[in-house]
């Protein structure tokens, strides 16, 4: 409908998916791959200030990190916008997680098989401290799955009801498929509307 794009339209709806995971697993890359706006973040601000605090493996050439808000936008339809919010990776920003997760459709927890432990806290958070449905997604660095997903599931001690998938965070369609997994998982946990509820609309 043409009127939906007008600023005064009351029909706009927004939804949110949270992208979580350990420090340096590719959350910002993931958001940037699919967002129609450049991912908004404060990375540059962080670069110099955190050098001594956020040490990365020598094998990982990451020199910046995400400090606070890091998000992208995806227009799903004329009246529906999906926002992607990357969580701050470091434990000292954890109070922000509750705020970011409030009202979220679901969460995608990224994991790097070279450093699975980095994603333990995020998995713990969604398993124990949050009602937001979540999916764990192995980020295929170099586009290769280094370990069978069953092994990853065992290493993360992930319950069977939590979906586990893999994606290339640099590839928009791969990220879209991972987000689709999140939405489908959320659907499986949301009651279908009854016939009466539909008629009332």
């Amino acid at each position, binding site marked *: 409908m043409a009127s939906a*794009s007008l*600023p*005064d339209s*009351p029909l*706009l*709806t*927004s*939804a*949110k998916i949270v992208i979580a995971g350990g420090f340096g697993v590719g959350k910002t890359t993931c958001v940037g791959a*699919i967002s129609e706006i450049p991912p*908004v973040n404060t990375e540059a601000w962080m670069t110099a200030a955190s050098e001594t605090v956020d040490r990365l493996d020598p094998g990982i050439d990451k020199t910046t990190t995400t400090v606070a*808000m890091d*998000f992208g*936008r*995806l227009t*799903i*339809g004329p009246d*529906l*916008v*999906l*926002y992607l*919010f990357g969580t701050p990776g470091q434990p000292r920003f954890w109070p922000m997680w509750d*705020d*970011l997760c*409030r*009202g979220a*459709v679901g969460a995608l927890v990224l994991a790097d098989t070279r450093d699975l432990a980095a994603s333990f806290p995020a998995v713990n958070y969604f398993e124990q401290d949050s009602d937001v449905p979540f999916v764990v997604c192995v980020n295929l660095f170099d586009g290769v799955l280094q370990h069978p997903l069953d092994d990853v599931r065992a290493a993360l001690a992930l319950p069977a009801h939590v979906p586990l998938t893999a994606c290339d965070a640099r590839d*928009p*369609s791969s990220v*879209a*498929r991972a*987000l*689709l997994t999140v*939405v*489908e998982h*959320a*659907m499986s946990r*949301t*009651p*279908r*509307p009854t016939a009466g509820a539909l008629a009332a609309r």
Partner: protein
Amino acid sequence: MPLRYWKVRPYVLTAGRTRTRTPLLVHTLVSVPYYDAVFAAGLLPEARSLYENARRAARSVAELSAVCGISLGVTRVVVDDLAATDRLLVHSDHDNVDFRLLERLRDGLRKLA
């Protein structure tokens, strides 16, 4: 008196408030129902910046905060103030995600996958 180091503390802008009347989530969309240039000219710089940036298209609270360079907490309070007098329209949130919304998201993402 020189104004070179003049600065406004966040609590001055919000009059010490940290909470809003209506819940404003980071992805809550905000837009300007009808733009009023005279009203805009009378606003404090922060409120004006938010008002002007929400003018052309609906934007999320987080986007407004980032674009205007105003912290999320202050953005929420100032947006809430403008919404209380209907100068800004807060689009209803799906605090409880419903099935129909998920279906629309699924269908939209399938086109991209």
